[in-house]
């Protein structure tokens, strides 16, 4: 796979032709359609890699309705798209989300939650079902502890040095952080709803070895209640089949129950919304704000089908209008990649 051009965190202001929010299949293919029209793109994604839902939800599951590919996995489709768009050398901003959008003269300025700034005359929202964010357990009062003693992600391990940590969950994140934090924690315990784990077998074996050596505890139980005051956790009440309810003393809870999608700050961009979807026209897939487009699963129009192939079509039509905005004086000749030597040159065909 070609190496991706990944910008430094918090860098900018970058100036480009088009900012694409979302690096899922549709955002990636938009790079291709824009590139054929000589438009450069920057992509922003909350995940740490391209592919969106294809990479996060079903990398190994088969997709049967991509034209010309009788069966392809989510990861294979992502890899093929990256290969296809490699000639256009887009710039990627991963592990961050577009937080604010403002108009600056003839351009839009997007600032991400880690301070990256990008400016362009066209913005394309290809955000699918929204940003992937950690699932929050529906435990009453958990929000009082969030950010103080309940954390859904580990950004700096040092923060957890000397803590009495309770990790919850049975997937790779839960097991990986159990293994990585155990040596620096004062104490570490893992709580999971069953004595079986979704995580990679090697991690599970490593965790069980730590338990056998008495270096950590494993509880097969369900979290019922958080105890503490002023956001500081003192213990977590859990319930197990064998022992009923009991308290686990801890000052830090790290729940890892996978990711879910939320629209997030896009809701505050001043665009019309219809039940978390962005209404667009079906000629250019432009929103109510000129120069801002929405393509793929996030848009809404009469007859919309949430299929990857619909998003590909939308990307192609959007690109025509984007071209007119970025280069209003250039006449666009409609060409085919099969016959146009100009297009083939852009694609690096020899």
């Amino acid at each position, binding site marked *: 796979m070609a190496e991706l051009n990944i910008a430094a965190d918090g860098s900018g202001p970058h100036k480009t032709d088009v900012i694409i929010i979302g690096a899922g299949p549709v955002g990636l293919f938009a790079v291709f359609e824009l590139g054929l029209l000589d438009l450069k793109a920057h992509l922003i994604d909350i995940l740490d890699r391209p592919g969106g839902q294809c990479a996060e939800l079903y990398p190994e599951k088969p997709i049967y309705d991509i034209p010309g590919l009788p069966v392809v996995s989510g990861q294979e489709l992502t890899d093929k798209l990256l290969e296809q768009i490699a000639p256009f050398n887009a710039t990627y901003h991963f592990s961050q989300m577009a937080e604010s959008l403002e108009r600056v003269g003839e351009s839009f300025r997007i600032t991400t939650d880690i301070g990256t700034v990008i400016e362009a005359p066209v913005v394309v929202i290809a955000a699918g079902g929204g940003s992937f964010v950690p*699932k929050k357990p529906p435990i009453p009062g958990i929000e009082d502890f969030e950010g103080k003693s309940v954390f859904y992600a580990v950004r700096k391990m040092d923060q957890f040095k000397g803590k009495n940590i309770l990790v919850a*969950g049975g997937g790779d994140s839960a097991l990986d952080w159990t293994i990585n934090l155990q040596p620096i924690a004062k104490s570490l315990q893992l709580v999971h709803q*069953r004595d*079986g784990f*979704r995580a990679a077998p090697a991690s599970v074996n490593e965790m069980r070895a730590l338990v056998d050596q008495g270096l950590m505890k494993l509880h097969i139980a*369900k979290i019922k209640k958080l105890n503490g005051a002023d956001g500081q956790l003192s213990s977590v009440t859990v319930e197990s089949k064998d022992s009923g309810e009991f308290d686990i003393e801890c000052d830090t809870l790290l729940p890892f*129950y996978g990711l879910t999608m*939320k629209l997030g700050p896009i809701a505050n961009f001043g665009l019309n919304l219809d039940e*978390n979807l962005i209404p667009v026209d079906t000629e250019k897939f432009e929103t109510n704000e000129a120069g801002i487009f929405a393509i793929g699963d996030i848009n809404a129009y009469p007859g919309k089908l949430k299929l990857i192939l619909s998003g590909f079509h939308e990307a192609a039509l959007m690109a025509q209008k984007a071209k007119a905005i970025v280069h209003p004086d250039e006449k666009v000749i409609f060409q085919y990649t099969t016959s146009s030597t100009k297009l083939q040159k852009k694609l690096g065909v020899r």
Partner: protein
Amino acid sequence: MKLVVTDRAGKTQELEALEGWRVMEVIRDYGLPIKAECGGACACATCHVYVDEAWLAKLYPQTDEEIDMLDEAFEVQDNSRLSCQILMEDKFDGLQVTLAPGIEPD
């Protein structure tokens, strides 16, 4: 055939189900609060339901994949199932399920 669904508020509704439809799809089609964000691929655990005990043994056993995926659900019980993994057929006419916490759309 009927699917009987109880929501988080305790309200029970009889939904008309069609052969071959996933229980998740029937619930979603009626506009009940179910996120089901992966669309039925057994990849997200946001269609978690509790199956009425009387019906539990009549269903096909869970796949390992479903059991694993339930690790990302909340308040998992012995009668927990992912409703995208139950396909309606005649013998499930009248199946009763209750929506689990944490699957409501935003």
